[in-house]
């Protein structure tokens, strides 16, 4: 039996984790802003944010490549000033996963934020807390369940991204080849057995991870489980 190269698995986990963290950091303020704003154009922004979902991943990857690539102004600036290369590096894989996963986060989190009891925010305001503070001490904890589910969604989506990562990061073995690409390659190289093994590994790792996240989420919610039930 061939040895199974586990590099893609670890790369995928690393990439997905970083992309998820980025999506949280960027997505939380955006979705909160969107949930509070009632302007028409916040709905337009919302719709625009779904573009990464409706475009074919490879095409999205192509546009990212053109936008951030080494001959693009952004890419050249980054490379010349900081020596940072995005495309065809693990960073590129993170960017791809991030772009692909962010919309899922924003959509879910926005709805969650919008359904928080306004009176609780009022209570916090009266108690002298700033909006910023309220966001972290009331809004986030109260939408914890939804944020957590959005986060697993994002993580899963980042973990599974194929087309965009393939295009932006280049599927270089032991460098930027993530698990989904490795599985695809094995399948198309006619190596079904290897493909199946990799699928099983990917599947079990994901199930275990997502299950753990779910449990953790439950644990962290402690007494809140039915917090909304009142007597």
């Amino acid at each position, binding site marked *: 039996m061939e040895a199974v190269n586990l590099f893609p698995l670890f790369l995928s986990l690393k990439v997905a984790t970083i992309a998820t963290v980025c999506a949280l950091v960027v997505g939380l303020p955006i979705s909160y802003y969107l949930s509070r704003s009632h302007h028409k154009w916040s709905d337009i922004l919302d719709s625009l944010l779904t573009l990464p979902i409706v475009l074919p991943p*490879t095409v999205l990857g*192509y546009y990212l*490549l*053109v936008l951030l*690539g*080494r*001959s693009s102004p952004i*890419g050249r600036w980054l490379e010349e000033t900081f020596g940072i290369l995005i*495309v*065809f590096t693990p960073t590129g894989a993170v960017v791809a996963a991030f772009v692909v996963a962010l919309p899922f986060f924003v959509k879910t989190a926005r709805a969650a934020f919008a359904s928080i009891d306004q009176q609780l925010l009022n209570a916090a305001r009266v108690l002298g807390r700033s909006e910023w503070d309220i966001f972290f001490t009331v809004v986030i904890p109260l939408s914890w369940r939804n944020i957590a589910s959005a986060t697993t969604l994002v993580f899963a989506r980042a973990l599974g991204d194929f087309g965009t990562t*393939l*295009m932006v990061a*280049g*599927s*270089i*073995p*032991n*460098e930027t080849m993530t698990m989904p690409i490795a599985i695809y*390659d094995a*399948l*198309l*190289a*006619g190596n079904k057995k290897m493909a199946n093994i990799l699928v099983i590994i990917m599947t079990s790792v994901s199930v275990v991870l997502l299950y753990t996240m779910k449990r953790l989420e439950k644990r962290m919610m402690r007494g809140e489980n039915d917090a909304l039930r009142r007597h």
Partner: protein
Amino acid sequence: QPNAAPSIKVAAAADLTHAFKEVGEQFKNETGIDVTFIFGSSGQLAEQIKQGAPFDMFASANVEYVDELVRDHVALEQTKNVYAFGRVGMAVKNGVAVSSLQDLLKKEVKKVAIANPDHAPYGLSAKQALMKAGVWEQVEPKLVYGKNIADTLAYVESGNVEVAIVALALMKDHHLPFYLIDEHMHEPIRQAIVITKQTKHEKEAREFLAFLKGPTGTSIMKKYGFIIPKEE
């Protein structure tokens, strides 16, 4: 990694999946140079190289993509090489009585898979063959298109089409019945290779090129069904 063993990255078309792996192993045995292959459809790889992908060489399934890179000044023109001709044939589902293109008209042949002729060179050849055989019109409604040539093979492997027109190079050691299509039925599939401009390993890349065209390389390529062009 200056102290590490030298290595090069070769972007190669999907039909080369099996053949190049073996070439790469032999090359390493002889020279100690590690070759990493990035397989994909020719079009996709060409696009990535244009955007600065850190590949040292590009092995396309057709010469046009190589010409494009040369035109865009991202590949070294003098290293362009057509080193082999590909062949296509029909991979047939077990139990289906098909051995010629005419057989595709049979009623029991419900679906036929080819790669997308728009951007997969092997798909284009399949289309040309069907047209030349005068069955394109009748077969077209039965066609299913794969993203690249390896995808296409998956259709017949999974039993969803009766016949797939694929690269011979993918069929070595394959269990499915395979019927070659006469090479005059389509324009030659010119497998071209080129060294990219931004490579930092031009020496090693040239070594690989030489190896590929050398006796070991050509014999491996032949083994996989490629036709080696006569030295011009």
